[in-house]
């Protein structure tokens, strides 16, 4: 698994899950990526990616009890699997190696 590269958005999602630790459910992941990258993220894209990462065995999830408020719903909390952690550190390391010794012009705003 560690031999495969992660796509850019997959990488963001996995990094957001890593950041959020125990609190990584859909809306929180979406907001974390939006806040850090400034790029709008749609729920559709997020869940499609989470489902793909799940198929690849890089993330898994637990379903919580319904939220203790009126109309509260259950949440899916995601976390990285062992393979996911390996893939993440592999990808970031590859990225760091590729960046090594490179000076890039600052990104021009939208981050893409």
């Amino acid at each position: 698994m560690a031999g495969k590269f992660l796509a850019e958005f997959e990488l963001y999602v996995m990094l957001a899950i890593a950041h959020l630790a125990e609190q990584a459910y859909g809306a929180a992941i979406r907001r974390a990526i939006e806040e850090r990258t400034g790029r709008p993220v749609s729920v559709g894209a997020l869940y499609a990616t989470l489902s793909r990462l799940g198929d690849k065995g890089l993330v898994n999830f637990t379903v919580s009890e319904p939220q203790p408020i009126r109309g509260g719903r259950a949440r899916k909390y995601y976390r990285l699997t062992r393979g996911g952690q390996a893939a993440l550190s592999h990808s970031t390391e590859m990225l760091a190696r590729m960046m090594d010794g490179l000076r890039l012009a600052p990104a021009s705003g939208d981050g893409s």
Partner: protein
Amino acid sequence: MSRRCGSRVPRFWRWLISLLMNPTDRDYALADLEEDYERQLTRAGPGAARRWYRGQVVRSLWPCVRSRLSHITAPGLVGRTKPIGRHRVIAFDFVRDFRLALRGIRSRPGFAAIVVLTLTLGIGATTAVFSVVNGVLLNPLHHPDADQLVILWETDQHTNPPGTRNNVSPANFADWRELNRVFEDIAAYSIGQATLTGLGNPEMVTRGWITSGFLWLLRARPAFGRGFLPGEGSNGADNVVVLSYDFWNRRYASDPDVIGSTLTLNGDSYTIVGVLERGVDFLARGIQIWTPYRMGPSDFANRGTRSLNVLARMKPGVTLQQTRTEMAAIADRIRLEDPEWMTGRGVNVVPLRDELVGRVEPALLVLFGAVLVVLLIATVNVANLFLVRATERRRDLAVQQALGAGRGRLIRRSLAECLTLSVGGGTIGLLLAAVGTDALLAFAPSNLPRIDAVAIDARVLVFGLVVSLVTGCACGVLPALQNPGGQLNDALKEGARTATKGGRGQLRRGLVVAQVALSMILLIVAGLLTRTFWQLNAINPGFSPERVLTVKVRLPAREYPDVASMTTFYDELLRAVRALPQVNSAALTRFLPLSDGPWTYTFEVEGQPTPVLGQKQSRAYHPVSTDYFRTAGITLLQGRDFTTADNADAVPVLVINGAMKRVYWPNQDPIGQRIRFDFDASGGPWREIVGVVADVHHDALHWDPRPTVYGPESQAFAAIANRLRLLVRTSGEPLQLAQSVRRIVQRIDPDLPVFDIRTMDQIVAGSVSQQRFSMLLIGGFAAAAALLALLGVYGVVSYAVRDRTQELGLRVALGAGTGRTVRFVLREGLTPTLAGIAVGVTGALLTSRLLDSLLFGVSSTDPLTYAMLAPALAVAAGVACSVPAYKAATVDPIAVLRLE
């Protein structure tokens, strides 16, 4: 995730995303969206939150679709370990066809884009119009068993053609109720406005006066409290009122203790006895307050006081036809008993649905027909595109067939491709329809009823889906049927020409004929509607609407019990308004042209024979103030205008219009003649005619002016003079005066609301808004249809040119001149065009009679319209052919022959 009232997530978009999300994630994604929606709501307000939600859904569409597709195909890609059933094989085949279709689409994005765009516009426009038709015409009325509800009118053969709708006299109402055996019950109602005071700002509310059985007929129950009791309809009973749910919600903040408290309507105190269930309304009028209809013995004095509107509910199983027969028999019976008032009068039974939407139905159906034609033409264009492509891929397909692909297989693949594109186009079209419906309603005529019932509901969605699928199949089947069968060898031969021999070329030309014919019909319809609109605008309304402001005031009976007190108020109002800067003149009238229907009264003319029994005629009577004719711009033809000397103590005077003169004094001078109106049972004084004014198109621009009598407001009676409209003619922008006028009214009487502030120009424009709506929309559709048809012509011709480049090159090489080449190309394009125009003109001649009710001043076979549009389309087609013709004329024979 609590729900706040009025800030719920947009239902359509929520439904859409829940449809598309992977079922395993659906609930979680919806919860996420709702959580963030709440955040947006508190941070940026409901509008921004809805936009945010919509944006989320739109951007989620493609990822969701892609994700689901990849899940569907997953089992086909991994190794199978157990045998699978036949239906699963078919499913895999379908998935494979679908993936191949996607691959085909991706390989030619330009082609796919044109197809999807064409279908998006076609399906989107059709669905948007359908959503209006669905909301206005198809959705049942809100009332339970509304099919059984009918409105009863009187008809009058003397002044109106049968089938018109006159109010009903209380005596007839009582007799109908007594004698009929077809109705569960009948009830009377009247809808009007009332001034509400004592709850903050004075406000005009819409009020329904109803007899006690009315709510039961509607099957409307009180949410709490009670409805009206039978005794509450008689004069002298306590003043009671029932509130509508929305009004109670808005003005009383849903206070359940409201029962027993009082409110003030037109200065009278009313006790609230009940609140109706949510959504109870009648004829989409937005009734806020219901009060009992009061009738006393004097109302039943004769059958000439026609003041009631009547609702009835047919017994279960009774048909409209039975009801009409029964009511006609009852009318005959009453006529025998009371010939003086009832000769020539009958009953008109109108289903409630027709009463509400009957007038807009023809226009909406024509609109829907027009948009279907556009969709049909778009479909034909797409089918044509596929035909061309099928021709280009002949060898490709032949190879596949040679390798063993069955005919069914090829058809299926072609279908899969079309369906994918059409469902794609349909989905985007549906989003377009959601936006387009709002745009459509934004400039819909003001009299379009039930606008609130227009929405993208399940029926509209199903319609959109069916249209997409049918369109897809229609596009796909044609080229698939044309797939090479016998000509397999030809197709495979190297260098074989894809000559337009036989079937395919014929089929394509046939399609072009159909397109041109349909767009010709639509153009003619649009042309006729445009001429109608011009004719309407060319009518001299009889008054001049430029720079005139109108506002309405209504004087409550308590503070203004008689005409004298009203006149004092009106005089002061006019004096103050006339003193405003920029005001040229100001006046009052009870019935404004093109807005208020006048009240009519029976009358007699001095010196003319006593009317034959039953022929006592009624004419419109308008109370107006001094200076009315000058302010409204109505020409005085003869005699004099009213002056301040024509007050309550002076000799009663009248001014008549030209139509009145022509009927009663055709060869005589009417000045000095006298008329007596039956304003009440005791009759009234003789009134002397002092002037004649020009006719005004009062009821509608396209209706002939009716005989009309004007009298000074100071000589009228309280029930008619208590609510007048103020007209102010100014040299500036009329609406800027509204504030000053409002201040003047409030200074004279702080409790009076000023309402219905409009300019006369707006009123005139509003009176033709339905015609403008039809003209603009059908004009737009006709233009789209013509454009698509011309694209079709262009496609056929340029294909023919490309197909025969070699032949053309050879001809040029052999000495054919440019003229001959161009003629050949033009013939290729113009033959089907002219055939299409001929078919279209014939079709229009045969069908345009259906438009008669929408046309005015122009016949449905108007030669000018036909004579202008048919050549115009032919010329446009010629222009469309000119590009390929130029290409053909400049073919380089050497280059072409070298290809050989």
